[in-house]
């Protein structure tokens, strides 16, 4: 799985995984998030528009990333989720913890 990263004008780092976020790829997602934090990025967005499937392993990697980002004084938010990801977030009551924003640009519009 590839993890291209782009940067919004306000310094937010946008991570764009593609394909399936399952137990095969979740470790790489976790490492990519850790790498961004170690490089000094604090406000992260996972743009999930190219992710076709996410299971509890992928969700676990996002939650791990969220915790690491908060420990570093930042945050991890998610954007552009498809129907299957939304279903998993709803079933696990995680929409409160990881509310999906429509677009990456909207994820930090409140701060």
């Amino acid at each position: 799985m590839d993890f291209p990263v782009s940067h919004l004008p306000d310094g937010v780092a946008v991570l764009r995984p593609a394909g399936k976020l399952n137990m095969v790829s979740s470790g790489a997602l976790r490492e990519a998030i850790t790498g961004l934090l170690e490089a000094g990025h604090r406000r992260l967005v996972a743009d999930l528009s190219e992710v076709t499937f996410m299971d509890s392993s992928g969700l676990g990697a996002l939650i791990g990333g969220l915790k690491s980002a908060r420990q570093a004084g930042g945050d991890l938010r998610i954007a552009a989720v498809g129907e299957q990801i939304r279903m998993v977030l709803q079933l696990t009551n995680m929409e409160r913890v990881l509310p999906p924003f429509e677009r990456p640009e909207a994820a930090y519009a409140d701060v």
Partner: protein
Amino acid sequence: MCDAEPQSLALSSPPDDVDSVHELLEAVWRKHDDVRDLDRMAFETALVELASNVIRHADAGSGVRCSVTVAVTESRVEATLVDTGEAGDIVLTAAQLPDDLAESGRGLPIIQALVDELTYTRDGGLNRWCIARDRERC
């Protein structure tokens, strides 16, 4: 097309992984193009969670072999997984979601929310898991 002829996969982990389960389901959906999107999405999520669970339990030992069989009937989508892993100590009563910031423990609650039947039996040194989802009415 609504026949009950099953499609199956012999998975040996390592090196095989859950991506092969996704591929099996793609072949199943190609054959049964009348299965609705919601059923596909729900069933794929449940089956991948179950297969992940089987593979993860094998990680502690010397690997696991697992056969995955999927059948589509007019009323249901069903899968059977038979694996060589250690006996499951899993309790199939209503599973609770973990704390918000827990990084694991959501697989079983997800499966239970998405299928109408989930059974586990231990027989002849093998684990047998069955899941079935009632299909949306066409």
